[in-house]
């Protein structure tokens, strides 16, 4: 059992570079899934740059390839063709363990289904990414409490996910994604499982957090409410980038 499997050394040199490179650079990226004997193309040669410190949205209908694109950016899937650079790091250059370390340090995830660890409390779920990168105990406690406070869940910190509402769970997921101050936060349909009022509150919360932390947010969504908050919009259809335009809140 290798301790580093669970805790990436905090002192390890950052593999990500800051600007002038974009947060994400994709060049001619294609992804094809094989279902039985049939090849199903999910992405068909996408090239795009996603800038740092923005609220970027990948939009499109169901099955258009949004989630696949986010998976590639999140380094949890590999393209069939093309190159993916995240924070200046060519993803193809990293083996599985180094990819895991890279994700642990640089990328936060917010999933549609919240995906909290059910046996851990809200506090422990938020603390989890810090434990992975070996953050000292005192620092872990400070940042975890700070993030729980930021998402308004301090009173519910000891509750397990099954004792929280959908909105509360998603706020825990947001705190978990942000607690390690990652370079990029990827959110795949973060409001899809929430009612509109809760969804609006979550969007407002993420926007507020992003404005304060200047974290790069990349969303996959077809929620118009969420799209209205975008700085950058990348529209995808049938695995192809069909439009890139600034959002309403763009400077």
């Amino acid at each position: 059992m290798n301790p580093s499997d669970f805790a990436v050394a905090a002192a390890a040199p950052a593999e990500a570079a800051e600007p002038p490179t974009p947060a994400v650079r994709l060049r001619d990226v294609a992804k094809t899934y094989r279902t039985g004997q049939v090849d199903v193309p999910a992405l068909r040669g996408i090239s795009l740059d996603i800038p740092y410190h923005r609220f970027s949205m990948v939009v499109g209908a169901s099955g258009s390839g949004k989630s696949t694109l986010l998976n590639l950016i999140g380094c949890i899937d590999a393209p069939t063709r093309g190159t993916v650079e995240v924070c200046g790091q060519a993803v193809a250059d990293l083996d599985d363990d180094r990819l895991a370390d890279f994700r642990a340090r640089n990328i936060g995830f917010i999933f549609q289904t919240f995906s909290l660890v059910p046996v851990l409390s809200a506090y422990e779920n938020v603390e989890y990414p810090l434990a992975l990168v070996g953050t000292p105990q005192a620092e872990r406690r400070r940042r975890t409490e700070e993030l729980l406070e930021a998402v308004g869940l301090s009173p519910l910190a000891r509750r397990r996910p099954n004792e929280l509402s959908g909105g509360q769970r998603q706020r825990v997921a947001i705190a978990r994604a942000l607690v390690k101050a990652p370079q990029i936060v990827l959110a795949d349909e973060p409001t899809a499982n929430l009612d509109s009022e809760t969804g609006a509150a979550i969007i407002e919360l993420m926007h507020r957090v992003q404005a304060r932390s200047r974290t790069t947010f990349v969303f996959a969504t077809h929620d118009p409410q969420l799209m209205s908050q975008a700085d950058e919009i990348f529209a995808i259809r049938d695995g192809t980038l069909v439009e890139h335009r600034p959002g309403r809140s763009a400077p």
Partner: protein
Amino acid sequence: MNLLLKTAARNILRNARRSLMTGSAVAAGAAAMMLFGGFVSYIFAGLETINVQRVGHLSVFRSGYFLFGSGNPAAYGIDDYQHVIDLISNDATIRPLLTVVTPTQSLVGIAGNFSGGAEASKTFLGVGLIPSARDRMRMWDERHTGQVHRADNRLSDSDESRGIVGVGLARILGLCGPLHIPHCPAAPVEGAGKAQAPKPREDLVDLAKLESAPGGAKKDEAPQLELLGATVGGAPNVVSLTVAGAEPQGVRELDDNYIAMHLALAQQLVYGRGEHKVTAIVLQLHRSEDVPLVRARLQQIFADHHLDLEVRDFRDLSPFYVQVVAMFGTIFIFISAVMGVIVLFAVVNTMTMNVMERTNEIGTIRALGVRRGGVRAQFILEGALIGAVGATIGALIALAVAAAVNHAGLTWVPPGNSAPTPFHVDVADRPLLVLGTWLVLTLVAMSAALLPANRAARLSVVDALRHV
């Protein structure tokens, strides 16, 4: 590591019923292994005690006796045996380890009972010994089996004529009545149409009459046997033995032939007026674990003094002990293997179901940055925890059951023994057994988790996240 342990422990409690069933299988396996192991340990200890009390830890023979001498013990006598005993007793290495060092004389011959009108004879296997040394040897109980014998006042260092016989031999020679042996039938009366006791040879009767003529009178009311043997020179010789009692010998062949007598009487029969020798010098030690050390030292002493002697331990002299140990050892290994397989399958089943149910969670923690090795460690740790907790509960059950059995006052007759002894299950006194079983089952549970854990670690992050 703390996070890993916390998550593993909570995941076990999360599926409490499933974990309980699997843990119960481990606990049952552990308890069975420890209880049977404790029982086997007690058998081993009992057998060792019986043998060490009877033949000591080590026996010194003249070279060749062990392989060829049992048919003619007189021909393999140890010359000047008191000198050898002194060498052993005074050795600085051996002396503190020694409880008894005593000479013995093995002999064979014919025993006849001609008292009270009876006329019966039977070949015998005899041993001449020092009664006080025999008493001290029969008090050895390093393993605390409770099989300690009180001093046997039927034999005495000061009375060379007394001896005891096997119950079987007493029955054959018609001594059941005179010795008041319970459950011992009298020999059939001649002419009653039943089997007759073997009639003695006439020359033996004549010799016996010679021996019991005035001057060889009975010393008390106890029955007497006339023992006929051949001296080293081949001449016939007869001595009278006052039978002070009978003692069952456990093994029928021995019981039907056994006579224990004073060493001096045995030497008188075997050596007559010639130099008195012994066939063996028996050593009993405080602790069995010192046998190799003392054995090596004895060989060194004999080599230094150019003595043509060999050393055998009680295992050499008691193949039955070795066979029983091997048999129970094999049974223990077989039962342990069966328990191990049951635990293996129970844990594999549980961990496989855990992996299936937590596929999405695996995808989540992998996305957060946990390496494949971390996922593998997570599930292996869970398997190990189930094994450790189950084995710990099993150990507690085994200790409780063993304590109940040991306090129930049960008795049994162990193999090779003749009298009932306390029935014990040695679990509390066998820390190696408990720790070994605990460790083996925990390792088995860990190994069982390895397969599902590898499967979990190999999952594609994307596929795992899609899993519902």
